[in-house]
């Protein structure tokens, strides 16, 4: 009795599994599918969060929005000067942006206005737009668009320019100056960047109004304090800080509701049907087998050990196989079908690659939700039978 692991017991467990080939196969398959589905969904959400976290620090420190009756309204540009006077504020920029609904294609574009004379843009633009002429952007009415926008335009026969329909019904022609690099598609796919003036024209936003204001703070530790100051000065505004954005990114998926709730409930339901079947007692054949083993000298511990091996082999195999399949499905095949839950019915489809983000927590979570519970469900009824008098069970 040198080794701690009893190979003979494991062999017996394997034989027991093979004895009920079809049942074992069915249970393993269902478990694998469940693990696969759950893990895949977690992998997709983790990837999206990872992508979000990668760029979170480039977001504005403070955003000032005007909210009236729960609705967003354009804010006065005047308040910019008052904001700049607050101690600790290093810069305040008025933003003009919005959604343009292109009826022909049934898609929404996010249109963002940028100031013309900002050098910071030049460097960034050159990095992410191929063959770009920054000066052209200012000179003509030009725009830079995301890959998805370019595609939609092409599909609607717009190649070098696009006609925006203004609120008064007239058209505004804007030439295409460049396309954002495909590697930024998750961020830029439906975006259009153009000079502020053009955006104002397209959305008919008056000179004195802007969509919102972005405030930069010299000392990041003072963000909260300055935010509350601004709120005091302008009570009808909503102040969104970079901290809020980070929190918002954390909460992007509410696992307690929506699609996840449906998925988890269905999984739990399936899972518990299997568990119920196992724990509602063993078949008379299984009971007899335990009785025989006890009669020929097996202790309760030996019986339970064997049952443990049996259930562990099935559940662990299903778990590993499910995880391997999920990895391949999500990261190699880019989660076909499943990703549509997140993409929705958008006409403007983003061809994005889900980045690999290794999260041990997910793997542990799925493991502990499946393997130990199945093992317990197998051992408990066996224990009940094993503690009976062997004679009773055999007869």
């Amino acid at each position, binding site marked *: 009795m040198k080794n701690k692991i009893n190979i003979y017991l494991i062999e017996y467990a394997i034989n027991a599994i093979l004895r009920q080939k079809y049942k074992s196969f069915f249970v393993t398959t269902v478990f694998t599918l469940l693990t696969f589905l759950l893990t895949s969904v977690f992998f997709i959400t983790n990837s999206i969060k990872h992508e979000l976290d990668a760029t979170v620090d480039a977001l504005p420190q403070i955003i000032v929005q005007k909210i009236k009756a*729960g609705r967003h309204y354009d804010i006065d540009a005047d308040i910019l000067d008052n904001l700049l006077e607050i101690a600790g504020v290093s810069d305040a920029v008025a933003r003009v942006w919005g959604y343009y609904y292109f009826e022909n294609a049934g898609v929404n574009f*996010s249109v963002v206005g940028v100031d013309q004379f900002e050098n910071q843009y030049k460097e960034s633009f050159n990095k992410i737009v191929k063959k770009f002429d920054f000066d052209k952007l200012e000179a003509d009415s030009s725009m830079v668009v995301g890959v998805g926008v370019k595609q939609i335009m092409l599909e609607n026969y717009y190649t070098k320019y696009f006609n925006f329909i203004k609120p008064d019904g007239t058209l505004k022609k804007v030439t295409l100056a460049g396309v954002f690099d495909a590697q930024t598609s998750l961020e830029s796919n439906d975006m259009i960047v153009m000079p502020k003036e053009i955006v104002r024209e397209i959305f008919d936003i008056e000179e004195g109004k802007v969509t919102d204001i972005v405030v930069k703070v010299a000392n990041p530790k003072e963000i909260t304090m300055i935010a509350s100051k601004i709120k005091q000065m302008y009570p009808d505004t909503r102040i969104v800080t970079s901290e809020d954005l980070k929190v918002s990114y954390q909460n992007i998926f509410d696992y307690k509701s929506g699609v996840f709730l449906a998925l988890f409930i269905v999984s739990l339901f399936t899972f518990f049907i299997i568990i119920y079947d196992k724990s509602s007692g063993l078949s008379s054949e299984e009971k007899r087998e335990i009785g025989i083993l006890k009669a020929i000298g097996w202790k309760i511990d030996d019986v339970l050990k064997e049952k443990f091996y049996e259930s562990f082999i099935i559940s662990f195999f299903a778990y590993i196989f499910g995880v391997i399949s999920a990895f391949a499905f999500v990261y190699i095949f880019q989660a076909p079908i499943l990703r549509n839950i997140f993409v929705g019915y958008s006409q403007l489809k983003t061809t994005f690659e*889900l980045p690999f983000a*290794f999260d041990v927590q997910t793997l542990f979570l799925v493991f502990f939700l499946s393997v130990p519970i199945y093992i317990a469900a197998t051992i408990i009824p066996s224990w009940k039978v094993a503690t009976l008098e062997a004679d009773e069970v055999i007869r």
Partner: protein
Amino acid sequence: MNKKSKYLFYTFLTLLFLLVTEGVYLNSTKVISGESLAKKVAFVKISQLPDLAISTEATFVRHRSLGTVFSIYKDDGDLREYFPSTYAISHSHIINKKAIKIDNEK
């Protein structure tokens, strides 16, 4: 070790090996590269808008961190259904945010 135990052991070993290989492969090929990351950050610096263009139909899903209560409860018939993405991507929990410490000294 008996035949069946051997098969089981080697099967598990193979699966674990496959898992590790997959992990290593994905880690080296599918992670966001430095170049890619720089581009993404550069873009966000220009646009200064949050959230990803995964689901572009619904405005509250698109820039959800800046969404308002109104945009969630829109009734506009013009807009087509955007389920299920709005059931997967939840609204931002800062939607009803008031001030930080509004009960200030009077």
